[in-house]
């Protein structure tokens, strides 16, 4: 295949192509390996499109600027890796609470601390889910190829706009830096956040009010006629602080429910289960590539997660009667494996965990599979 839309891209470059195609026109970031290519490419591309790139003084400021720009209606992105992802956590929680759409790419590297800056890992799974404090929902997508870096970045923007919540693209060093042939789609589905109509002159608009079965408020952008308040404090439907137990309960439950109720739109799981096969490997990100090869070579099933959270409890429970063992492969000491154990009570769940900065090879996985068969 050849043509103008056929490219040979890095995962990080595919994220940039996708972000721009999805309508992103603001990037704030701070240099950190192995995500820096995203910032560099955005610095080059955005001004040509009339967008804005800024290198902020730190990761915390980057996340703050991203939220500020999004409040004005501009689709916004930041990209980072482990240490920077930790610094962004408070503001990710702010975006959850204030319901500000934004996308955060975390290209995982070895940790904890400065760890292994240039080597891959998948140790930030639980940080992506629970990194910011308090009870909160999380949407976490994980690409396993350059094509998925593109597709899931578009999906991340669309979900963040639709649900008014931050979405995390949990990439890793391998998928971010490898190059693959990719056909960039001519047309993609783009979702834009709902806005109220032009300001009517009445000043009693309630930006956080939801009506009927709706879970997602229609919040105006700053500078478009509506004057209202946004805060990270627990707030009522007017956007002003409240400590009422009823209002707090309703808000926290709604924030969680709005993600749960859109599960069909968010989910990303591919189950390939040959007939009469009782063993299946489950993986995500670059590790899935080895898991798929090992499954193929041993004739067992393979499950790929492209959405890590909300976790696909139901989809896994549906296949429990057909299988006996799930082997969960991840470049960490065991994070997704515990989610699988929680969801699948009837199935034997085994973890293959490597956290030495090296990609898990098909051979390592096959050895484990053979011992199970």
């Amino acid at each position, binding site marked *: 295949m050849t043509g103008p839309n056929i490219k040979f891209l890095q995962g990080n470059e595919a994220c940039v192509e996708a972000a721009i195609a999805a309508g992103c026109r*603001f990037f*704030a970031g701070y240099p950190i390996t192995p995500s820096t290519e995203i910032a560099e490419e955005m610095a080059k591309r955005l*001004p*040509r499109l*009339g967008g*804005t790139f*800024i290198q*902020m*003084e*730190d990761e*915390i*400021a*980057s*996340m*703050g*600027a*991203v*939220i*500020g*720009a*999004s*409040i*004005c*209606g*501009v689709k*916004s992105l930041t990209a980072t890796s482990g240490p920077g992802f930790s610094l962004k956590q*408070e*503001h990710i929680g*702010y975006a959850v609470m204030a319901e500000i759409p934004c996308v955060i790419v975390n290209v995982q590297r070895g940790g904890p601390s400065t760890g292994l800056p240039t080597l891959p890992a998948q140790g930030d799974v639980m940080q992506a889910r629970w990194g910011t404090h308090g009870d909160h929902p999380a949407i976490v997508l994980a690409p396993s190829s350059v094509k998925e870096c593109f597709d899931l970045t578009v999906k991340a923007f669309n979900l963040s706009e639709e649900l008014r919540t931050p979405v995390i693209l949990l990439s890793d060093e391998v998928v971010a830096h490898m190059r693959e042939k990719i056909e960039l789609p001519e047309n993609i589905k783009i979702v834009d956040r709902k806005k109220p109509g032009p*300001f009517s002159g009445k000043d009693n608009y309630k930006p956080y009010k939801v009506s009927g079965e709706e879970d997602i408020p229609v919040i105006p952008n*700053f*500078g478009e*006629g*509506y*004057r*209202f*308040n*946004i*805060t*990270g*404090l627990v707030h009522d439907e007017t956007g*002003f*602080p409240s400590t009422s137990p009823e209002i707090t309960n309703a808000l926290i439950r709604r924030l969680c429910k709005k993600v749960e109720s859109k599960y069909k739109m968010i989910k990303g799981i591919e189950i390939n289960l040959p007939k009469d096969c009782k063993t299946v490997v489950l993986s995500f990100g670059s590790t899935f590539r080895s898991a798929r090869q090992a499954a193929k070579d041993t004739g067992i099933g393979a499950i790929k997660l492209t959405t890590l959270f909300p976790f696909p409890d139901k989809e896994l429970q549906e296949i429990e009667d057909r299988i006996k063992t799930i082997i969960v492969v991840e470049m960490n000491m065991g994070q997704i494996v515990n989610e699988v154990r929680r969801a699948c009570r009837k199935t034997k769940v085994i973890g293959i965990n490597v956290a030495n900065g090296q990609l898990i090879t098909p051979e390592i996985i096959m050895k484990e599979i053979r011992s199970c068969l």
Partner: protein
Amino acid sequence: MPLKDLKKYLRLDKFPHIWCPGCGNGIVLQAVIRAVDNLKIEQNNIAVVSGIGCSSRAAGYLDFSTLHTTHGRAIAFATGIKLAKPGLTTLVLTGDGDCSAIGGNHLIHAARRNIDLTVVVFNNNIYGMTGGQYSPTTDLESNASTAPYGNLENPFDLCELTKAAGASYVARSTTFHATVLPNLIAKGIRNKGFSFIEVMCACPVYFGRMNKLRDANEMLKWQRDNAVNVKQWGIMTQEQKKGKFAIGELHNIPSEEYTEKYKKMIEEAKRRDNGAV
């Protein structure tokens, strides 16, 4: 302008405010709306961003687009707003702890960029909301709940700090000098670039109580007796300056503003993209 005509800038349904009796924050709030009124800026074209602390609650009382952010980060959020909508007049209301301790990095870098934000810091030399801990502007040997034996740290001169960092407009005044405050803030808003206005602001409940200045009037008198007009300041000796501070317009050297530079860069990038170069 009589006070009743300024009511349109306030969210009166949010009153009474949370501030303690004798707190200077209301005087600063009034000065901010007087400045906006003097400049005749359309209410819809103003974004007010604040951080966390007593002073940062000011945003909620103002009928503009208001953003109450996280501790120390108001300037970072405001930077995003200004870049996304450069036409919005963007004000940052913050406190001494908020903008110079946890948010110190953002303060100096926004000043360095000379981005068009007007930062008004309510400097009460203490963390009020958490109960009177020492801040980066608490004087040496002053008492605070976390400095029960006296503060060992030298305070920041925030005006010197922001001036050195690259702010194009820097001013200081006090809540005692309430009548000159609106003009100093208005000049800051009018300056196309990073403007910093420090307002010395009494906290009788925490700073005062722990430093033998319990009475709010006494604290205002302290401001009156220790503030020196910048012209006078220029001819004073080091000895005379001891324990005093300069007020007025301390620095005003306009220079090219960040979003305007960015706009030029966009035009240049588009020109190159069109194959003109």
